[in-house]
């Protein structure tokens, strides 16, 4: 019985993946569980394993090809077995462990948003340079109309398609073509020529990650009506407790950070405010059963969000250990599929950069994101006296379609309360 290898879904917002490389070639023996290919998603490169043992009879998706989730990319069968090709598309994608529903307004993981990808996976006829440019820009060639013989896609076609794509950033100034001073008709006064804007500096091509960040952030700012609330949290008690915890856990090599405490506090607060642990859908507000905290991690060429799943059920020590491992894998570009996606709330922490305050963009489909600033000594008023306390600003950005200011303020104050009375994080 031939086994279809399909493009797996890694993360609920993954709609397609790119074959980075085949680790096996047609005719190779493979055993179940053996890595056979590398798949590149918008976030990471991961290996996929053979679903069955046999011979890798047919590679359908070639390196560089973008393939929708669930579509057949290869066939494994016995050496003599007849295989149908092309095999029909798999009916359903491999379900992912997360129970999160697909948001109605899916944040496109692809920058290609215009046009409908035609069904079927017939061979794309494109020139080598067209394919190369398309791959560099993450363009699905099925969306590009070819002008060459028999519809072959040429470099010019890809470049025209690129030019027609919506720009994530303001369009660069016009190319530095010196305007041709056309002789003005005698009857008309000469038109003033606009000053040409010289293009100086290097244009960096967009990496896949940059494209994803651009698309997601722009989509969020366009679709989500943001509102912002800031509170100032006194952190002295939390810092003192942290010191005690870390002294106790020193032999185990565990070092709880302020961020770990914020994760725990947010997770506990979300239990009391389930409406903040939700996603706006066109036909309702989806409440999530699990509290999965996404944490933005800065990586060499951008940032990714790792996910601490069921954070409300984990101890500070567990959260700390998990975050250490997640951040390390993220920075090394070795994330596992379970490391990201499926978050229901996100935390962005710039505390290590000495910032007083900042506001974050909601990480769709979450209802809110928490921006954590630096804990630093500040003069504050306590019982009519000016005293010095270690203060940390938290700014919540909320999706006003899901929640309102009063609720969000109470939620934020619950986080503040937990951090200022930190034994609640431990007990």
């Amino acid at each position: 019985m031939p086994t279809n290898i399909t493009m797996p879904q890694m993360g609920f917002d993954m709609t397609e993946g790119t074959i980075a490389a085949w680790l096996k070639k047609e005719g190779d023996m493979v055993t179940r569980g053996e890595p056979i290919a590398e798949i590149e998603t918008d976030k990471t490169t991961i290996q996929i394993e053979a679903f069955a043992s046999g011979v890798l009879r047919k590679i359908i998706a070639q390196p560089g090809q973008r393939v929708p989730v669930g579509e057949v990319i290869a066939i494994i069968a016995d050496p003599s077995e007849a295989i149908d090709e092309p095999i029909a598309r798999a009916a359903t994608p491999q379900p992912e462990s997360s129970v999160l529903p697909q948001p109605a307004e899916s944040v496109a993981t692809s920058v290609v948003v215009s046009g409908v990808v035609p069904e079927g996976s017939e061979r794309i006829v494109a020139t080598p340079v067209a394919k190369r440019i398309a791959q560099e820009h993450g363009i699905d060639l099925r969306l590009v109309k070819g002008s060459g013989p028999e519809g072959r896609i040429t470099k010019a076609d890809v470049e025209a398609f690129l030019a027609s794509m919506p720009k994530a950033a303001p369009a660069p100034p016009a190319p530095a073509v010196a305007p041709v001073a056309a002789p003005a008709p005698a009857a008309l006064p000469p038109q003033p020529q606009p000053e040409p804007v010289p293009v100086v500096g290097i244009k960096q091509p967009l990496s896949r990650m940059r494209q994803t960040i651009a698309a997601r952030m722009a989509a969020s700012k366009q679709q989500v009506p943001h509102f912002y609330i800031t509170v100032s949290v006194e952190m002295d008690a939390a810092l003192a407790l942290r010191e005690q915890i870390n002294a106790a856990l020193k032999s185990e090599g565990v070092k709880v950070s302020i961020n770990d405490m914020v994760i725990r506090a947010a997770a506990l607060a979300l239990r009391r405010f389930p409406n903040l642990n939700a996603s706006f859908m066109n036909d309702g507000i989806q409440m999530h059963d699990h509290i999965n905290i996404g944490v933005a991690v800065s990586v060499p060429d951008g940032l990714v969000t790792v996910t601490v799943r069921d954070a409300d059920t984990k101890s500070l020590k567990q959260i700390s250990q998990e975050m250490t491992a997640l951040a390390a894998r993220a920075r090394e570009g070795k994330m596992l599929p379970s490391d990201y996606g499926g978050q229901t709330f996100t935390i962005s922490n710039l505390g290590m950069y000495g910032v007083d305050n900042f506001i974050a963009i909601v990480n769709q489909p979450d209802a809110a994101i928490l921006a954590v600033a630096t804990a630093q000594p500040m003069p504050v008023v306590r019982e009519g006296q000016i005293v010095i306390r270690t203060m940390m600003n938290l700014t919540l950005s909320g999706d006003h379609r899901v929640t309102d200011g009063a609720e969000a303020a109470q939620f934020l104050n619950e986080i503040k309360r937990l951090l200022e009375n930190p034994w609640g994080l431990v007990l």
Partner: protein
Amino acid sequence: MPEITYREALKRALREEMQRDPTVVIWGEDVVAYAGGGAYGVTAGLAKEFPGRVRDTPIAEEAIVGVGLGAAMGGLRPVCEIMTVNFTLVAWDQIVNHVAKQSHMFNGQIKVPMVIRTPNGHGRTAATHSQNFDAWFASIPSLKVVAPATPYDAKGLLKTAIRDDDPVIFLEHLQLYSTRGEVPDEEYLIPIGEADYKRRGKDITIVTWGRMTIESLKAAKILAEEGIDVEIVDLRTLRPMDVPTILESVRKTNRAIVVEEGWRTCGLGAEIAATIQEQAFNYLDAPVARVAGLEVPMPYARNLERATIPFAEDVVEAVRAMMRNEY
């Protein structure tokens, strides 16, 4: 800079090298007697300037090459003139089996510093006298094969060829002897194995050599008026071929046409096209095209001869077709 003919440029190269090095000698049919020096006048007057060093030979090409080989092995630097490339056929055993192989078969102990000069190509001389054997020569390991297009290149390359310790097949072109071009009075050399951009452009690469360089330049001029910016890579040396320059150009323009006068099948165009797709596949926006001579024995009638050989208009047509995405 003074303009001189291709013929004169070659003669100056020979003269300068003979003045410089007393071991340089010239042997060939009618290099002394006919028309004042060689069937195409390249050696005219040199016999008088260099008594005893320019000699007429019998009509025996195998002997000319064989004697030249022996002399080269013995310490001279002979320049053997074969009246037309068609007559090298008689000497192929000497060229391929002996001239090309001596050094290798004796582990480099023997050097063969000889040049075989011969006009390649057509010239109202019919089937047996109008052929291009550039691809044949270029397929022989350890031969160097040079085919200059301009007087400047002809002079600089012939001087280098004479000084080279390996055998060099020096392919002149019948139709180029009377063409003129700028050649400085000062001495210069052009390295063997270096192509030359005869025209810089961004839209399409033409890889060519010899007479077809001149036709391609004419074509580029016509195409420029249509807004098509052609780049011309003149190989100048066919073996060893300057592949990096070909690739550099193709990577820029993403399109290539090889233009050659000889027959298409197994021509150098096939070799160049294969090399481009092997080494610059991801840069191609169209298949590599070939413009080549028709695969027939050359007719004698002028109009039929013209129909057989590629000219500038054939290059123009091929470029237009590629720019219209017809390839």
